[in-house]
C-alpha cells in the first residue's frame, strides 16, 4: 500500500457520528441490493461505503415486469421501490451488514414528509447505520419521491424534517429531472443536508415499434449508465460551484477514468451503479485505478483532487 490519504469524511451534526469512508468509492442505491448479493463475489470490506436499496416504512411489491430495458449505452429501469420495508430491513438485512467494517448508508423514501421523518428517527437509533440518503428523486413511483425533489419548497420541507429527526449524516439524493440542479442542491444545504448525491436516473422511455406500445410496463423509467455520464458530470460541476457541503457524484461511472472525472468536477466521493451489473468488480477496479492515478500524478491526498478541475487555468 502507498501512503496516499484516501479517506473521505462526511460530517453530521454529531461529531461522534461522522461518516468515515476509507476510500472514495461507494455503491449506488438500487444497484447493490443489501450488499449480501455481491458478497458472493468479493470482500465488501474493501468498499468505501455501501448504499443499500431504498427502503420505505411498509414493504413494497414494486412495479410489474418488464422493469428493465436496454438502450444505447444505458438502461431504463422501473423497479418501483420493491423492498422489504423498515422492519424487514432491520430484521433480515442489517444483521449481516453490521458485520462489515464498511459503513452502510440507508436510502429512504416516503409518500409524505412525515414518513421520511419517521424513517429517519427510527434508523437514527439502529446500530449499524452510518448515514441516511434521502431519496427525493426516484422517478418510478406514482406518489411522493421525485415529486418532493423537483420543487424547492417541498425539498426544503422534507430535508428539514429529516434533519430534525436524526443526528446521522444526511445525504440528499438529487433528481436530474429539474431545471436547475444547483439551486436544488443549495436548497438541500440550506435545509440542513450534510451532503448531496447526484444524479439519480433521468426520466425516459422506450417504445416497441412492433407492438406499438411502451416497452416498460410502467411506461416511463429511469435512464442510467454511460449514456448519462456527460450530463451527470456537468451537474456535479455546477453543484460543486454552488454548495459548501460534499458532493457524491454518480451517473454512468463505468471505470476509474470516469470516477476521476467526477472527482475533478468536484465529487468528494463517487458511487458506482449500473457498472455493478456489467462488471461486478468495477468498484474495486475503480478504487485501485484512482489510487494508481494519484500515485502517477504525485497527489498524496484525495482532497487535493476534489474539484481540481475548477482550480486549474483553462
Amino acid at each position, binding site marked *: 500500500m502507498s501512503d496516499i490519504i484516501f479517506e473521505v469524511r462526511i460530517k453530521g451534526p454529531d461529531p461522534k457520528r461522522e461518516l468515515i469512508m476509507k476510500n472514495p468509492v461507494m455503491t449506488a442505491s438500487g444497484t447493490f441490493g443489501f450488499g449480501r448479493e455481491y458478497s458472493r463475489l468479493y470482500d465488501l470490506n474493501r468498499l468505501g461505503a455501501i448504499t443499500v436499496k431504498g427502503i420505505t416504512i411498509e414493504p413494497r411489491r414494486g412495479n410489474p*415486469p418488464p422493469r*428493465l430495458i436496454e438502450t444505447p449505452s444505458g438502461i431504463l429501469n422501473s423497479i418501483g421501490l420493491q423492498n422489504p420495508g423498515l422492519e424487514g430491513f432491520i430484521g433480515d438485512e442489517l444483521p449481516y451488514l453490521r458485520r462489515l467494517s464498511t459503513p452502510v448508508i440507508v436510502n429512504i423514501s416516503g409518500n409524505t414528509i412525515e414518513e421520511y421523518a419517521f424513517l429517519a428517527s427510527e434508523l437514527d437509533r439502529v446500530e449499524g447505520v452510518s448515514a441516511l440518503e434521502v431519496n427525493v428523486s426516484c422517478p418510478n413511483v406514482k406518489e411522493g419521491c421525485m415529486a418532493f425533489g423537483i420543487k424547492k419548497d417541498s425539498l426544503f420541507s422534507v430535508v428539514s424534517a429529516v434533519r430534525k429527526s436524526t443526528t446521522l449524516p444526511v445525504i440528499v439524493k438529487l433528481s436530474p429531472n429539474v431545471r436547475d440542479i444547483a439551486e436544488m442542491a443549495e436548497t438541500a444545504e440550506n435545509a440542513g443536508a450534510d451532503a448531496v448525491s447526484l444524479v439519480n436516473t433521468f426520466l425516459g422511455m422506450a417504445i416497441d415499434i412492433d407492438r406499438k406500445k411502451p416497452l416498460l410496463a410502467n411506461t416511463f423509467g429511469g435512464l442510467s449508465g454511460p449514456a448519462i455520464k456527460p450530463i451527470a458530470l456537468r451537474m456535479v460541476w455546477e453543484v460543486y460551484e454552488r454548495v459548501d457541503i460534499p458532493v457524491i457524484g454518480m451517473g454512468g461511472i463505468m471505470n476509474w477514468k470516469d470516477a476521476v472525472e467526477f472527482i475533478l468536477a468536484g465529487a468528494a466521493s463517487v458511487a458506482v451503479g449500473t457498472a455493478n451489473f456489467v462488471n461486478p468488480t468495477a468498484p474495486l477496479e475503480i478504487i485501485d485505478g484512482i489510487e494508481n492515478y494519484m500515485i502517477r500524478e504525485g497527489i498524496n491526498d484525495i482532497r487535493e483532487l476534489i474539484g481540481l478541475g475548477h482550480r486549474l487555468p483553462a
Partner: protein
Amino acid sequence: MIIDDNARVITNKMIIPAHYVMEIHSPDIALKALPGQFLHIKVTNNTSPLLRRPISIHMRDREKGSISILYRVVGTGTQLLSHYKPGDRINIIGPLGNCFPLAAEFKRIAVVGGGIGTAPLLFLALEAVNSGRDVLYIEGARCRDALLLSEHLGNSGCRVMVATDDGSLGYRGFPTELLKSRLERESFDAVYACGPKPMLKGIKKLSLEYRTPAFISLEERMGCGIGACLSCVCKVIADGGRGAEYRKVCTDGPVFPAEAVMFDE
C-alpha cells in the same frame, strides 16, 4: 461463492441456422454447475449492448473442465457471442440461479423443451438418466429442421418424443399436447419444462389437472443476474393463495414450481 472467470472458448459452432453451441473451459464452474443454472456472459467490452446476457448451462464436462451453452442469435448480444472463436477469452459469471429439483422420489420424469427452451434440459435429462431415473424427453419445434436435441438423445437412455408445428417429424402440434397424451397413459412423478410462455402456461395447467408436480424455468430481462437489481421479477402466488408477490428470476429462480407462477397480470 460465484465464480467470475475470464474463460477460454473451446469451440463455438453453428448446429442449425442461427443456433450455436459454445463450449467454454471453466473448471470451477463445471465442477459446481447444476442443471437449470445459468451463466451471465459479458459479450462485449463496449457499452452497447451494455448488459451481460443470461444463458442457461446446456451441458458440462467435469473431466474436461468445460461447460457448454446453446443459444439462438436473436439480437446484437447473441450476434456478438456467435463471433467468438476457439482460444478467445470470454468473461462469464456463474453458476447462477437455483436448479431443477431432482428429488429422490422423482423416479419417473417427463422433460419438455420448446424451441431454444430445450437448451438447459439436456443437462437435466442426462443427470436424471445417470442417477437411474426413467426419463421421457419431449422436444417441440417449429419443424423437423429446427429440432435441436432429439437426435443426440438417441443413445442417452431417455425415451425421446418429438412434436413439430408442421408435423414434419413426430407428433403434429404442441409438445404440451403430446405430454397430455402421455399423462393419459402413464404417470410421472414430476415434469420439468422450459420454453415459450404459452407452453409453460400449458404445463402449469397439465400439472394441476393431472396432479403432477411441474418445475418450469422462466426468463425475464435481467440486470445484475445475482439478485441485487430486482429487474427480472415474475409474479408468484403468495399468502397461501390469497395474494401475489414478485420473485427474482435470477436468484429465486430461474426454476419455479409451475403451480406458483401467475402468468396473467
